[in-house]
């Protein structure tokens, strides 16, 4: 059972996982909406669902594989043309460690 008191902390952790800095006003907005939504979603906990298989996609599909043929990749210039920063054949990013 989710404790509504822990939601504030859960939101902070989730924002970090989503790689987002939420402003205090956004945290409060989400907290209020989330409390409301979880109440609306109470039916999910009330319904007997143990024997029900989940549906992750609307239709049953087996693994869809294409022919194992070598196809041309996206040209390097195209792949790099939207990069905020690139050098030669590389995407440039800041250093990995703090």
């Amino acid at each position: 059972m989710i404790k509504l008191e822990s939601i504030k902390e859960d939101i902070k952790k989730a924002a970090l996982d989503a790689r987002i800095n939420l402003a205090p006003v956004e945290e409060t907005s989400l907290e209020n909406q989330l409390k409301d939504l979880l109440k609306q979603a109470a039916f999910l906990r009330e319904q007997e669902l143990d024997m029900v298989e989940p549906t992750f996609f609307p239709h049953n599909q087996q693994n869809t594989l294409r022919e194992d043929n070598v196809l041309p990749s996206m040209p390097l210039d195209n792949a790099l043309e939207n990069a905020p920063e690139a050098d030669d054949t590389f995407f440039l990013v800041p250093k990995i460690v703090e």
Partner: protein
Amino acid sequence: MDINKMKSLNAFISFNPAVTSGKQIGQASVKTAALDGTSFALADNICTTTLKTTCASRTLEAYQPAFGSIAGQKLEDKGALLVGKTNMDEFGMGTWGQSSYFGAVKNPWNEKHTAGSGAAAAVACGAVTLALAADRLGEVRQAAAYCGVIGLKPTYGRVSRSGLIDCAPSLEQLGIIAKDSASLAAALETISGHDPKDTTSFKTEVPPYVNLSQEKLNSVKVAVPEEWKAFADVAGLNKTIFQVKTVSLQFFKHALVTAYIIAAVEAFSSMSNFDGVRFGLRGEGKHLQEMYRLTRTKGFSSLVKEFLTFGALISYGKYYKDYFLRAQKMRSIIKKELEDCLQQYDLLLVPAVPFNAPSLENGVTGSKLPDNAAYYSAAANLSGLPAITCPLPGYGAAEGLPAAGLQLMAKAWNETLLLQTVRFLEKEQ
């Protein structure tokens, strides 16, 4: 096309330069499968190699895809002319057309109200004959209803999603908005079919929708939930053809919250690549993790940030088990309920949206979890079934806005019956 009108409605984010230079674009309704000269628009989350694709987000404001959508290409291959890219909610999140980085889309019927999307606004005022847009929780059908036009969400897998920047892959489909069923049938016939680039597209035969949609209807059994019996009465379905019966759907009302939970988790996963490395806006950070956070914080609106955080939260162990996994199980139940209903009946009739186009003057900003506009439409996305909305004259028109939209759902792959029914209603009206 009146470009100034389109600009005042804020319906488009970008135009084909040929249009702004005054070239004539065909606007007549399509009568055959040949789309030569027919004008169309694409929502701005459908990739194009000639125009930027922004998803109405600051983060993709300058993004120029290196590839286009298969559906858009199929229309162009048939001779249709792309007029431009239409405004939308940022990444399709929201149902009011208000979360766009480029501002809200005004309804051509009454500019104080939302159009839902630029695609519906552009079709409603005749700027284009057709528009393609994404339908995640019913956005195509809701906007079509707000603007008094026809909106179709095909069966999941009917139309390739290749080139669509989606955020909820198991729910989202490319839909079509048009003013008449003939145009819609021509577009559907053109863009349907298996695409090896989209592993969720099906290898099912594409029927000749244009011809089939003109065939005479015989006997159609229509189910309508008890509470919407009056709605069916107003629709005035011809009693010699349509046998309307009331049904009780126990789980349909849970579709909205169920779909919202699933959509949020899928968006959290699907949108992790908007990190400022390979494309889009980049925030300056001292190290990689800080760059990721600043990029996404700067590039997304509050609505998107809150929705993605909600998705991340629901992905956690305790929330995953109690809400996300159970939502996927509830999806099975809702899907079975609809499929069982459609085993006994040919069509299920419900409203398209619970209200008329919302006012833009209420100043609604930020997120809304869940948005009630999807109350009637989300079930078709959960189940993958085809659904269409068309105006219902004589019901719900107010404040200069069009009549309410009725929504029809059919068995998987039976878009033909939806088109035939809408064509019948067009002739009756």
